[in-house]
């Protein structure tokens, strides 16, 4: 019987039961070959021998050493268990670098026959299916890790029993972790081996793919930050996604050790998530194995010696390499020799073109790739230039986008530094009030209406007046995180917002809009009390506090001559004098502060350190300590927070309360 396509399987001629049976046996036999397995174990014994030797010194030898000396430390049974567990936990972490290296070496050894035309021909002319070759080699790899680990675990169990060290069950948990990690990295490297036909390319691919996702996320973030004004960064390189796709990072994360306060320094009570680490290795190892078998089934053996063996991966490699080369080299050159986004785009495109030809040279194994490859590279360069240039020219509308305030559920603000330097000095607020949100989008619209100004920032402009007393201008940083009603989040970062004293009087300017936003009572409350989260201000109870930078009382003044003339010495250069407030005083002052907050009389912010700021603010700060009830797993509890308010002349209620408490004369105004 003939088949019409080469891949279809032939059945034996009809009516010949014996032939069918022998074919069936042959098929079964084709999936595993004990001779090949034996050959692998005998050929590559130095590999698993070295691995076993390392483990032998790391565990049984350590146990012997510890077992002969630990009695002099007089450990209790519990302490001895903890010390033994700790050593095994550390060894579980060591399994990550060991698995990373030996997984690769095992795959390089076992699948090296695919990288050489002659060995490839020998193995593939044998009566065994490709799946048979793969699974026999795969099982050999499993043996390389599972058996040496098991021997070491068994030996350690015996030594533990002999020396009375409680290594059970920790040593078998280590066996599970170390074996699954070793196998995972072996499966990963085996999967890489299916895509390449060059033995030296395998460790390079393996190394790159181990960190590819994090690296690409980082490169893209870096590029977009250079090109897009306001780009906040996807921060993908530090997300769970990137960690999941970066095995070493993820395994160290899952095998991190939890510190227990009750244990002596250096001892930990358990591994973070050993079951998670084992599952991660098994599931992803299985996925990589599945991909490897699928690719191997259709691998073109004539590609032995080629950098990439799978047809559709070759252009992916060429242009993926080109993009990475373009972005990384372009960034390095730009950072050292150039400025501005357009020069960056040109450099990226040029480096990407070089990268595309270099990748083609590696694929084709010749330097003569220009004549036949220039068209594809030219199209690639045009597309890349269009994407980068388009992003820069805001063809996609990213830079000028401002949300409709109606569609914003709430917005988080952070970053603006303003005076005075108390709890509200660094803006951190979550705004839910529609009026506040509208004020934010209004400010945002003003910001993006002049992208050039945002890019230039201060650009050498004057910051202080001639006497150096007051600020004329300053650069501000602002991060906006819009939480939209549909659940999406849009973020923007502006690091060069230039605010000037001249603009404060013009309500249409960014400076004035920013000042207006900061002066909104709801924004002030949200900023000073950002620790409240979704809890109400009424849930706060003031339990104490202090007045800092007060006039020194006579006894203190005598003790410290530098504080004699406090009117002319800035608070920051004095030695602090303070008054401690009891709970009752704190409660009275908190009621007054709340009233001032509601009226917008305290906490007024100044985007510039100008004369008005010095007129309105005291040097004296009022710090209140609060307790806030929380409900957790262990029932009702309390969290404690502090908030510091620089006293302001406008805070009538607070000043009156201080006067009533007898602290009115202790406050120090600015005389600037």
């Amino acid at each position, binding site marked *: 019987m003939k088949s019409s396509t*080469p891949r279809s399987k032939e059945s034996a001629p009809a009516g010949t039961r014996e032939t069918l049976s022998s074919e069936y046996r042959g098929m079964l*036999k084709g999936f595993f070959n004990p001779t090949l397995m034996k050959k692998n174990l005998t050929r590559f014994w130095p590999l698993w021998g070295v691995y076993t030797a390392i483990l032998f010194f790391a565990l049984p030898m350590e146990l012997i050493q510890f077992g002969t000396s630990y009695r002099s430390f007089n450990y209790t049974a519990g302490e001895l268990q903890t010390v033994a567990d700790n050593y095994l936990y550390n060894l579980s972490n060591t399994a990550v670098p060991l698995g990373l290296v030996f997984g690769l070496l095992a795959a390089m050894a076992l699948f090296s026959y695919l990288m050489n035309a002659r060995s490839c021909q020998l193995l593939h002319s044998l*009566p065994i299916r490709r799946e048979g070759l793969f699974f026999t080699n795969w099982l050999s790899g499993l043996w390389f890790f599972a058996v040496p680990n098991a021997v070491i675990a068994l030996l350690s169990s015996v030594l533990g029993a002999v020396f009375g060290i409680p290594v059970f069950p920790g040593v078998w948990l280590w066996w599970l972790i170390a074996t699954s990690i070793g196998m995972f990295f072996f499966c990963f490297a085996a999967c890489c081996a299916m895509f390449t036909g060059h033995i030296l390319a395998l460790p390079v691919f393996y190394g790159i793919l181990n960190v590819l996702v994090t690296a690409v996320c980082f490169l893209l973030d870096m590029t977009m930050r250079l090109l897009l004004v306001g780009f906040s960064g996807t921060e993908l390189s530090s997300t769970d996604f990137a960690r999941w796709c970066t095995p070493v990072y993820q395994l160290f994360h899952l095998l991190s050790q939890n510190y227990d306060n009750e244990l002596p320094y250096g001892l930990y009570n358990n591994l973070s998530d050993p079951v998670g680490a084992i599952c991660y290795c098994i599931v992803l190892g299985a996925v990589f194995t599945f991909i490897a078998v699928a690719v191997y089934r259709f691998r073109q053996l004539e590609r032995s010696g080629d950098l990439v063996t799978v047809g559709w991966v070759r252009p992916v490699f060429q242009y993926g390499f080109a993009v990475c080369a373009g972005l990384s080299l372009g960034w390095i050159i730009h950072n050292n020799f150039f400025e501005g986004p357009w020069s960056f785009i040109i450099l990226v495109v040029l480096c990407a073109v070089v990268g595309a030809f270099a990748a083609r040279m590696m694929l084709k194994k010749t330097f003569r790739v220009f004549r036949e490859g220039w068209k594809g590279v030219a199209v690639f360069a045009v597309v890349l230039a269009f994407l980068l240039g388009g992003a820069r020219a805001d063809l996609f509308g990213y830079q000028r986008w401002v949300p409709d305030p109606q569609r914003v559920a709430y917005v988080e603000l952070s970053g603006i530094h303003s005076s005075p330097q108390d709890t509200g000095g660094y803006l951190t607020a979550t705004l839910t009030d529609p009026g506040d949100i509208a004020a934010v989008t209004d400010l945002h619209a003003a910001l993006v209406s002049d992208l050039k100004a945002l890019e230039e920032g201060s650009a050498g402009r004057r910051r202080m007046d001639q006497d150096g007393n007051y600020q004329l201008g300053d650069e501000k940083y602002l991060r906006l995180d819009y939480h939209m009603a549909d659940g999406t989040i849009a973020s923007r970062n502006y690091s060069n917002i230039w605010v000037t004293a001249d603009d404060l009087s013009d309500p249409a300017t960014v400076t004035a809009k920013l000042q207006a936003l900061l002066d909104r009572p709801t924004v002030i409350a949200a900023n000073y009390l950002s620790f409240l989260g979704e809890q109400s201000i009424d849930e706060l109870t003031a339990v104490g506090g202090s007045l800092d930078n007060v006039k020194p009382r006579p006894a203190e003044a005598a003790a410290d001559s530098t504080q004699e003339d406090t009117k002319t010495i800035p608070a920051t250069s004095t030695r602090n004098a303070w008054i401690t407030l009891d709970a009752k005083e704190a409660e009275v002052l908190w009621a007054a502060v709340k009233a001032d907050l509601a009226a917008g009389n305290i906490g007024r912010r100044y985007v510039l350190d100008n004369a008005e700021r010095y007129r309105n603010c005291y040097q004296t700060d009022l710090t209140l300590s609060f307790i806030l009830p929380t409900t957790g797993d262990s029932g009702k509890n309390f969290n404690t927070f502090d908030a510091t308010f620089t006293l302001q002349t406008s805070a009538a209620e607070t000043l009156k309360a201080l006067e009533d408490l007898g602290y009115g004369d202790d406050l120090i105004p600015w005389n600037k």
Partner: protein
Amino acid sequence: MITVENVVKSFDGFKALDSLTMTVPTGAIYGLVGPNGAGKSTILRHITGVYQQDSGTILADGQVVYENPAMKEKIASIPDDLYYFMSASTRDMAHFYAGFYSRFDWKRYETLKEVFRTVDEKRPIRRLSKGMQKQTAFWLSLCCRPEILILDEPVDGLDPVMRRQVWSLLMSDVAQDGTTVLVSSHNLRELEDVCDHVGILSKGKVLIERGLSDLQENIVKMQVVFRERELPKLPEDMEVLNVSQVGRITTLIVRGTAEETTNRLAAYQPILLEALPLTLEEIFIYELGGEGYEVIDPAL
């Protein structure tokens, strides 16, 4: 029987096999000849199940070879470029092959030890000379008791005695067990002695495929002395592959039988007319000459 039908294989756009069709009868010694780069090794790698064709069919005894262990167990091959595991001896490799080929014949292994007596079976094969490595390849292949033996330039590196020895072994297998042998070689003189079928490959296609005697009977070298000095106009339907003239003697290579060609040329009443048989090498050269692959004299 090996049947290859319309097999196409391309490497990076280059067609190494271009609708190649050939048939190797059971029990035949089939010589595959062709110029360098014609696709001989490529088609042999397809027949041994190493490469997968882009299209077309390759069957051995009616079954697909590719990814069919039951069929591959009946095939042994000696590639042009041998490979043995690092530090493996002949005996080690025999154990290895025995683990794959259920019909591996240890008794034969011991018998052939005498034939390949110059090969130290315990010495790493990679330390043996090229010729000895080839002997090892024959030794191991013959022990697999194959029904089909695929040989790519098999006697390269063997001394004349050993060449004769291995051909003798092969022919005895063919005679006794009906083994089918497919062999590619550039040594046409040698193939002529052992092959009963020949296929000529050029540019990924089989140009001619026939029994050797058929092939030799179907092309003839005629030495003629015509009455006139000038070559008379020959019949249009006479397929003349080559014409050369030395003095008055004209040598014609004509496709056809000796008898038929002699009768047709006799009509010109030549002074001398003689039909001579062609060697395989001559057939190869003249057939490929028609394909634009001939010996040329460059003006140096």
